[in-house]
């Protein structure tokens, strides 16, 4: 017998439907699947030049972590901004609110497949990097996982905020651009922060997406590139500030999403 629904059951139901939709969205699937391959090819040359600025991190390390960050940005942030906007303009979100799922469950359930896909790709990048590029085993796996989880949570909330100012799926490419550029250029994905002037780098370390992405570097390689690698215990000290900042930014983004998210199109 079916009984009362549970939060997990409702997330599963929403996630399964959304996964089917994602699978049938050729553009999103192509972007999501082709992206990591393209990135690994192009990032390498960009990062070759930058490697001399980041003691403790070589080209391959920068490349794999950078690729993870870009995958999370495109697959979670861009994809979800479009998905939230599409579901809103089709009145799917409004209809879902007539059911038993809570508002948070509706947003999370919609995000489940995108987050799942992005994390799977990060896993593949990580395993591929370790096997093919001879990268070391993660120094602090807990920090690495925390970095992935916080990045996914932050980008989900930011996607909800971005979709609040996105009227149609067609304009999602424009509304996601500012954060996409800021994150790629200012969060050390393409250009290591250490290659920038100190004052600029310090500002960049405060950007919304930087702290969570720094945790990936520190967790895996024991350093964010500003100094030699630490051991497991040492990484906690280095990670304290980015960890706090990442949690704070995620909380702010979640609050903004609750405050500004729109459940139906403007009349």
């Amino acid at each position: 017998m079916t009984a009362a629904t549970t939060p997990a059951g409702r997330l599963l139901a929403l996630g399964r439907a959304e996964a089917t939709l994602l699978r049938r969205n050729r553009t999103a699937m192509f972007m999501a699947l082709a992206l990591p391959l393209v990135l690994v090819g192009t990032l390498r040359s960009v990062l070759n030049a930058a490697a001399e600025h980041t003691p403790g991190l070589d080209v391959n390390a920068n490349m794999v972590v950078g690729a993870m960050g870009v995958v999370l940005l495109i697959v979670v942030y861009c994809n979800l901004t479009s998905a939230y906007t599409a579901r809103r303009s089709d009145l799917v979100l409004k209809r879902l609110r007539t059911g038993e799922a809570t508002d948070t469950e509706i947003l999370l359930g919609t995000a489940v497949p995108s987050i799942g896909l992005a994390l799977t790709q990060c896993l593949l990048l990580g395993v591929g990097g370790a096997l093919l590029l001879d990268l070391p085993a993660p120094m602090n796996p807990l920090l690495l996982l925390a970095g992935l989880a916080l990045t996914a949570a932050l980008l989900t909330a930011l996607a909800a905020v971005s979709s609040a100012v996105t009227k149609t799926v067609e304009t999602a490419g424009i509304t996601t651009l500012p954060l996409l550029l800021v994150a790629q250029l200012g969060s050390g994905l393409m250009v290591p922060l250490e290659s920038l002037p100190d004052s600029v780098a310090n500002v960049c370390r405060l950007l919304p997406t930087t702290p969570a992405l720094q945790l990936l570097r520190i967790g895996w390689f024991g350093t964010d590139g500003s100094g030699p690698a630490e051991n497991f215990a040492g990484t906690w000290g280095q990670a304290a500030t980015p960890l706090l900042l990442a949690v704070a930014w995620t909380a702010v983004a979640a609050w903004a999403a609750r405050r500004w998210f729109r459940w139906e199109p403007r009349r």
Partner: protein
Amino acid sequence: MTDTSRPRPAVEARGLHRRYGPSGAAGFEAVRGLDLTVAPGELFALLGTNGAGKTSTMEVLEGLAAPTAGEVRVLGLDPARDRAALRPRIGIMLQEGGFPGELTVAETGRCWSGLTTDSRTVDEALDLVGLLPRRSVRVKQLSGGERRRLDLAMALLGRPEVLFLDEPSTGLDPEARASVWRLIRELRAAGTTVLLTTHYLEEAEELADRLAIMHGGRVVAGGTVDEVLADHPARIGFELPERSGPHAALDLPSLPGAEPTIDGRRITLRTTDLQGTLTELLGWAARHRVPLGRLDARSASLEEAFLAIAASDAATTPQIGRAA
């Protein structure tokens, strides 16, 4: 515990206001002091022209929007604050569906079944609305009427105690409309409270135990169909022949209970006893061999009542439909 002598209303609204935008001229007040009571097991129709405030009212009753002022209770609960407790007991069909076009009918059903306490099976719900043969079709390929029926099926998954239907038969062909009406009657017979909006007067006349006519954000007439019609007399219209002259009305017999209006040769009689007045009139015409031109007798209908109410406010154009 509920007081058995006077059952708690299934839906109740007191002094409901709903405003869009800022206060003052920049905003718009769609609902202006609405009172509504729907008894358990009752089928209640909310009628009105487009823009009368029906959907704005429904959204508040459904808990999708908070009222600007006033009290709302559904099954004794606050639909916005007690959303989690109330949702498993009610079913909602919005005016426009909201199902992703790329999912099939069955996939849509599976998702909604996972969001519904004690859900019927998907096939059972689809069968209720006659959509079972279309279960593998993508939603975007459904006709407008089929989409409405899918929407209804999803609202029925949880065997709701109270069912909110916002224009359930709009866009349906006559056959589908008849089967939806039959389904709604069956649900009501099984004890479901149904609150529906419609601008098909025939639909309210066919289905509703009680109805309310909304106009300009307020309920302007309400009660059973008979009660609403009682305030709106039947009408007999005819033309007297030329030779009867300008004082034609003087030739008319005295018709008790009928009130004549004279416009040249055209006479309109308003009466609460259509048959009696008509018998008298036809008898008089036969005795005096008076031909009654363009004779037309109409019993009071919701349409008449509706037009009279809409005409009371010339600023809004009534848009009424007739079920085909």
